[in-house]
């Protein structure tokens, strides 16, 4: 039952996606095959699944923890950017210095920066009851502008002919490749570790228990002695930290430098991934693979079928739409007409 919703949502997305593609004048069956099947048929695309799945999985695992507690961090994209900036800047600060400590230092800087960026909405919620959805979302654009400002200013490549980009990271600041000849990097292992740790936290540790309790019954959580401020801070910091780490990985991995085009929406897509995976770490792992597939297949469809990029975004958005719709219908049923409702309201209010 738990998993029927996501599966049905995927099926509905395919059906309505095909209608969308047909309306755009493309062969619907062929497009769906390009998106969902072709990426699985060659080695390079399969390795790209790891490249795209890693940030999605890392971010979504963190978001899922927070969502369990009813803490709605919508700004993972911003934390991702800030993580990339901090991790990248840390690497550039020691440019051309070799050492195995360089990458860990970058990762720490990235995760810390992501966490700090996420703590801004957390603190505003605790202190002023500001809505963390809005604040974290707005901070995405602030972070994006910081990235642009920094790569056109202090972090600009001195030998880069004034292009808005940083130096290309030196070897010690670049993530080791996992599979020779591909872009799949060791960040994938970190994502796997995050899944396992998140599972332990949720199922075996008080931290996860307090999150679930807060999400389900806030008063019971206070009775149990868990403080809301702590839960909000921790879940924002963890999801922000993981998003920041994903940002550092992206900069130090596939991209190899800081550029304004570094963020491609992983932080937003991860929201879909978290829900598609039922806010469960194992589910998030599977869902991130599926969403990575639509990214790669979507690029293929843009090339082969000349689909606009927006059509792929709409397609991904449909998935979340149907998923949330499924959840509504699994909890509620359709109500009778207005007239009967009015009669019932009269009957029930005495």
């Amino acid at each position, binding site marked *: 039952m738990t998993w029927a919703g996501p599966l049905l949502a995927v099926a509905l997305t395919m059906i309505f996606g095909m209608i969308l593609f047909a309306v755009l004048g493309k062969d619907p069956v062929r497009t769906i095959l390009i998106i969902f099947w072709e990426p699985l048929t060659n080695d390079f695309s399969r390795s790209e699944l790891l490249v795209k799945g890693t940030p999605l999985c890392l971010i979504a695992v963190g978001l899922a923890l927070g969502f369990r507690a009813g803490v709605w961090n919508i700004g993972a994209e911003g934390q991702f950017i800030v993580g990339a900036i901090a991790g990248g800047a840390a690497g550039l600060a020691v440019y051309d210095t070799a050492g195995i400590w360089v990458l860990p230092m970058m990762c720490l800087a990235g995760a810390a920066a992501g966490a700090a960026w996420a703590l801004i909405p957390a603190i505003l919620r605790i202190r002023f009851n500001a809505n963390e959805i809005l604040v974290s979302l707005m901070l995405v654009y602030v972070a994006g502008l910081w990235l642009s400002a920094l790569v056109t200013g202090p972090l600009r490549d001195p030998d880069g002919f004034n292009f808005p980009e940083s130096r290309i990271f030196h070897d010690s600041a670049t993530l080791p490749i996992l599979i020779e000849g591909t872009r799949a990097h060791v960040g994938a292992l970190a994502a796997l570790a995050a899944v396992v740790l998140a599972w332990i936290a949720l199922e075996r540790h008080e931290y996860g228990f307090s999150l679930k309790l807060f999400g389900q019954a806030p008063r*019971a959580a206070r009775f149990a002695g868990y403080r809301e401020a702590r839960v909000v801070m921790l879940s924002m910091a963890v999801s922000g930290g993981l998003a920041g780490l994903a940002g550092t990985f992206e900069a130090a991995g596939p991209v190899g430098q800081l550029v304004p085009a570094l963020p491609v929406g992983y932080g937003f897509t991860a929201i879909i991934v978290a829900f598609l995976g039922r806010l469960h770490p194992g589910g998030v792992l599977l869902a991130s693979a599926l969403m990575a597939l639509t990214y790669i297949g979507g690029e293929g469809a843009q090339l082969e079928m000349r689909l606009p990029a927006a059509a792929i975004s709409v397609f991904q958005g449909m998935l979340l739409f149907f998923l949330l719709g499924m959840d509504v219908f699994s909890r509620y049923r359709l109500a009778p007409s207005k007239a009967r409702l009015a009669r019932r309201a009269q*009957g029930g209010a005495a």
Partner: protein
Amino acid sequence: MTALLSIRGVTKRFPGVIANADVSFDVQPGEIHALLGENGAGKSTLVKMIYGVQRPDEGTMFWNGAPFAPGSPGEARAAGVGLVFQHFSLFEALTVAENVALGLPAEQAGRDLPERIRRVSAEYGLPLDPARQVGQLSVGERQRVEIVRCLLQSPRLLIMDEPTSVLTPQEVETLFLTLRKLREEGVAILYISHKLEEIRALCTAATVLRGGKVVGACDPREETARGLAEMMIGRELAPPGAPSGTSGAARLTLTGLTAITTAQFGVSLRDISVELRAGEVLGVAGVAGNGQDELVAVLAGETPVSPAMIQLDGRHVGGLGPTQRRRLGLNVAPEERLGHAAAPEMSLTDNTFLSARTRMRLALRGFLRLGAARGYAAKVIEEFDVRTPGIHAPAGSLSGGNLQKYVIGREILQAPGVLVVSQPTWGVDAGAAQAIRQALRDLAAAGTAVMVVSQDLDELMEISNRFAVIAGGRLSAPRPAGETSVEEIGLLMGGKADAAA
């Protein structure tokens, strides 16, 4: 004489349970008819069928001799059935008249409504100001709103579900006068209550349900309360043990406890000073909404106060949170079971972590010990006779009484130094209520200081050694339970601290 309402062979099944099996009885006009039974005996289902919320699977109902099958509450009301719920369905931010209007058909909710409310409420001795905001009314007054709303539709059968559980003794008397007046006018009243003494004083007929079946009918005036109780539960009741008279050192001391609330309709606690001694049960009586919730929240540590206001075994704990207080031996069972004392969607196993993880070592350095939690949940279920499919059942699937047993059991088995319980037997049937009271007394006998916050005076009289009343956020000085009359307590509950001093 034709019965007003005849129920013949009514059966109602739900998946896995038969709520009513072949139920038959009559309610005559001008009769106050008691419907007796433990929790889960099938009273609510029966009422829902009479009120048109549910339909019988088998059997028929007759209204004045004609077949009666209301398809909705509206139809039942049109026929002349009125229902006063146990839990009120009122909007606090609206006025009395607005609330009444919401429950009436549009054509009856006209401009003259406030006048009619005033007239009807005066006529039946239930004074109400139609212009007042419901949030400012006492619980007794809120009940009047519900009753007046029913009376405006001139019902011929009035169903009252646990009407007195929230009232002071004086308010109960007023209510009884109203009910008797209605009876004299020929209105039939179906009266549901756990309070057997009240039933004996008020009702002229009774139908006893057990396990969905009618197991007896009697004239309650000719029965003893004990006899009625035994009819309900089908076995003999053990006589209650006398409260132990010994009390030792002070374990919990409140000194000038003050907590100003900013919540709308909240009650500020003012200058509460009291000592809770080892081995005693201190009863705290009071009408709902006089600071009980706030007091329990402050004692639980959900609302911190300055450290010296609360002393536990000589330590200042006012500033500590719930977990640290439990570690030091102060446990609390709040009134609201679902969503406060227990998380509805979580299993009984997971719910042990809420309050028992520290004292019962269910979590070690933050890691949950699932095996230990399962064992503890099983122990609570076993020792407190919690009826449930097992430790994996979600708390929300338990009936109110069984969840109450679980919640109280979860705290008692931790052997705390001080236990504060709110409404320990609210909605719990006679047999289980007695088991809970006995467990509380046993806990006190073992040296725990117990505070019971309750609106049930009979209960407090039975289990308390000492007795205090909370009114308007102030607590009266405790007095020995044996030396206080119900009338005095009633006056204290009304806030007249000097009248009874």
